[in-house]
């Protein structure tokens, strides 16, 4: 069981008496508690420091070293204690885990030493309680980064047998891998700079000429600027196409931010080419030229710091959002107040509340242009309050953003954050698996238990010894409890896979050859009660009285000859064995009944679960309870 609820198991089992009067089926027998030894103190000697605890405390977690029989390897006969040659300080937290059910991570311990101890004692780190888990994960991440920094020097080794595509992609992503890549890197950087400078310069007034008034350079030297623009766009287009070709996942590349920036940078030029003769849309054309400034973002490929700044802003989105929201609130409040304060004064610039917004923003950011100034006393009072509060409101989130930026810049953690998100999911998944292990353990032990009984029935000694049950007493008692619940409600626990199969099969059972499953499901609530058993002496069936339907996926049919006669008896169900090979068919197989279990011993309740037999790996066995067949 996952947590220390071992103390409550007797209580839960006792409370199961509440199900007895409403149970539809008789209850299984309880597992016998053979160990009648009293609860004793165990001495644990860890490198000289002695710890003592009750045996039952350690038994709470049977899948760890101390809870299982693995600790017998460490038993010291002469001193009658268990000796572990490990760190006694860390052992304190491990033993506390058994006592309280919560695993804590002591802050002064080294993370790798702690991990090693946990692995030694068989405890998964995901169980660490929420109080200490953040600290644990942070330390673990730092450790990983340190290891990674050591490894990065080896990363640039060229792998043999890379295709042209892979070589090109590596060249694009890491420019210092080869000379060609470096040349390409600098050439594109140069052209980005040229393009940006061109865009800027073409708006500068170039000086008057005799026949034109003062006009910007772009209109004076149209041809030259056009040629420069064309050259840059050609380079950018070639670069984009090469990247698209080399990308390992083209779809992901096209969705990435950098490629969108590339496209936006070169698109205005092509659109301009197409539309250049149309005078009506020249206004829109002019607007498009604004987008050329996006070329400057292409520099972010060349600058690590720029990328990190962009990433910081993205990760500080919540702080920025808070800043924006609080500013908006303050602006509206102060603008309203200022408007009403200044309403009385004549020739006031505060003509409406939206007009006061401008004053408020300028004041709160301490710009103070001076184009709007309050004249009334109330206005001045509130204006000063406004500027003071502006300083506070803006100053609050800024240190958070700054510290975020410096942290990210220094540790370069973008990939680690992505990995950390995956780790969070795997942590939950692992804990869920460990917890659901108890559910699956019940189902697994059911199969185990059935196999055990089947072997008991068929009486092969060697096979019995193979299935040594190593479930602890606690587990077997828990399974008995779940089994009682099954018997109370006359329904079984199945795992999700089987459940979905059942649902599918119920949907499939619409054609005329109805399998027996449909008929028996309707009457299942009364089918398992022993009092209705009337075994047919003609048919070699014992009180097992169960029907197994095999879904056969191969063309073999393993139909027992005697069961065919039973099929005839059940003619009203309309079940037919479909003899076409290769399809899914249902066949009825009766289990061999041992002569020792006489049919009349209905009173003896062996813990007969519905039997699951695996006859071969080809067949998938579906077990159903049969009732009508034996009422004949």
């Amino acid at each position, binding site marked *: 069981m996952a947590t220390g609820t071992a103390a409550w198991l007797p209580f839960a089992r006792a409370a199961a008496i*509440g199900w007895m009067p*409403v149970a539809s089926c008789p209850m299984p027998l309880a597992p016998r508690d053979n160990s009648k030894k009293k609860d004793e103190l165990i001495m644990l000697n860890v490198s000289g420091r002695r710890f003592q605890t009750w045996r039952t405390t350690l038994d709470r977690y049977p899948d760890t070293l101390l809870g299982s029989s693995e600790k017998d390897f460490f038993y010291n006969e002469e001193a009658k204690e268990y000796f572990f040659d490990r760190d006694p300080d860390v052992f304190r937290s491990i033993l506390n885990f058994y006592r309280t059910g919560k695993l804590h991570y002591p802050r002064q311990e080294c993370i790798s030493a702690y991990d090693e101890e946990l692995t030694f004692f068989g405890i998964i780190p995901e169980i660490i309680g929420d109080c200490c888990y953040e600290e644990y994960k942070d330390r673990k991440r730092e450790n990983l980064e340190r290891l990674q920094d050591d490894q990065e020097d080896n990363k640039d080794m060229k792998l043999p047998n890379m295709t042209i595509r892979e070589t090109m992609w590596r060249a694009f992503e890491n420019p210092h891998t080869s000379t060609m890549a470096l040349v390409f890197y600098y050439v594109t950087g140069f052209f980005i700079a040229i393009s940006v400078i061109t865009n800027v310069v073409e708006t500068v007034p170039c000086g008057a000429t005799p026949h034109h008034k003062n006009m910007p350079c772009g209109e004076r030297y149209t041809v030259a600027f056009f040629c420069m623009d064309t050259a840059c766009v050609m380079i950018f287009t070639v670069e984009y196409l090469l990247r698209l070709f080399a990308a390992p996942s083209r779809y992901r590349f096209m969705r990435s931010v950098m490629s969108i920036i590339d496209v936006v940078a070169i698109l205005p030029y092509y659109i301009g080419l197409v539309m250049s003769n149309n005078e009506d849309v020249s206004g829109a054309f002019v607007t498009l030229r604004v987008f050329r400034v996006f070329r400057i973002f292409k520099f972010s490929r060349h600058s690590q710091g720029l990328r990190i700044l962009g990433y910081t802003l993205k990760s500080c989105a919540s702080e920025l959002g808070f800043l924006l929201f609080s500013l908006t609130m303050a602006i509206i409040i102060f603008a309203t*107040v200022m408007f009403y304060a200044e309403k009385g004064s004549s020739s006031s610039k505060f003509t409406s509340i939206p007009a006061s917004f401008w004053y408020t923003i300028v004041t709160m950011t301490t710009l103070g242009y001076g184009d709007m100034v309050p004249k009334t006393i109330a206005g001045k009072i509130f204006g000063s309050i406004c500027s003071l509060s502006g300083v506070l409101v803006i100053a609050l989130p800024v240190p958070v953003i700054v510290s975020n930026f410096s942290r990210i810049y220094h540790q370069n953690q973008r990939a680690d954050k992505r990995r950390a998100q995956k780790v969070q999911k795997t942590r939950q998944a692992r804990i869920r698996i460990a917890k659901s292990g108890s559910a699956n353990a019940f189902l697994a032990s059911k199969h185990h238990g059935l196999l055990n009984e089947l072997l008991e029935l068929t009486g092969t000694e060697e096979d019995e010894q193979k299935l040594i049950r190593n479930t602890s007493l606690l587990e077997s008692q828990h399974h008995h409890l779940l089994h009682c619940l099954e018997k109370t409600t006359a329904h079984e626990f199945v795992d999700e896979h089987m459940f979905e199969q059942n649902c599918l099969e*119920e949907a499939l059972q619409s054609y005329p050859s109805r399998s027996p499953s449909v008929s028996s499901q309707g009457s299942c609530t009364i089918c398992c009660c022993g009092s209705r058993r009337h075994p047919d002496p003609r048919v070699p069936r014992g009180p097992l009285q169960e029907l197994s339907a095999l879904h056969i996926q191969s063309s073999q049919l393993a139909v027992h000859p005697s069961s065919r006669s039973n099929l005839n008896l059940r003619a009203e169900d309309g079940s037919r064995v479909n003899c076409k090979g290769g399809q899914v068919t249902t066949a009825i197989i009766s289990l061999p009944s041992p002569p020792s279990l006489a049919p009349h011993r209905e009173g003896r309740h062996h813990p007969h679960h519905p039997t699951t037999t695996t006859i071969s790996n080809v067949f998938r066995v579906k077990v159903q309870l049969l009732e009508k067949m034996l009422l004949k």
Partner: protein
Amino acid sequence: MLSVIWETEGLQTVGIVLLVFASIKLLHMLGLISFSEDSIEDELELSTVRHRPEGLEQLEAQTRFSRKELQILYRGFKNECPSGVVNEDTFKEIYAQFFPQGDASTYAHFLFNAFDTDHNGSLSFEDFVMGLSILLRGTVQEKLNWAFNLYDINKDGYITKEEMLDIMKAIYDMMGKCTYPVLKEETPRQHVEVFFQKMDKNKDGVVTIDEFIDCCQNDENIMRSMHIFENVL
């Protein structure tokens, strides 16, 4: 002239100042800002509910457990609940851990009410151990009494069909979704019908304690299953 200007301006100022103070008071009431240090501490609710059970001898006299058994029980109980009492939420959590596939909270609620004989909303060690004593060491009559008490949700001495339906649904909820055969909507209801057919002798729609005990004593299966858990401790 000046006095008129002062009047209008002054009125405006006063009005605005009143508005500002009102908004500050509103924020203070909403708890967004606080002026004094003590208001924060009101929120720290120190739960000093701690319960110490009666002495070992008294419990030994009242229940059918031996001293050693009481010791083991108390150690386990105190380990799980250091404060000495279990409230309903903790109880539901603990009980839910035994039934990972379904939802045990409704049944745990009924169980809690059955154990909490003094109805004070929390289970102390005495309640726990008294209940266990009946269930594990009591006579069949006492066990059946306890079961009747569990089913009778409003403790009026009669089990109605609605009460039984609630209990039945709670039990079926514990099975969860992935069962074989698939749980249908009317399965609990059918189960209740079967139960009432068996138990309700005079067909008046309710089951009294005498009908219940009579019927159970005549049913072999139920009698036999009452003895399953005798060696739990």
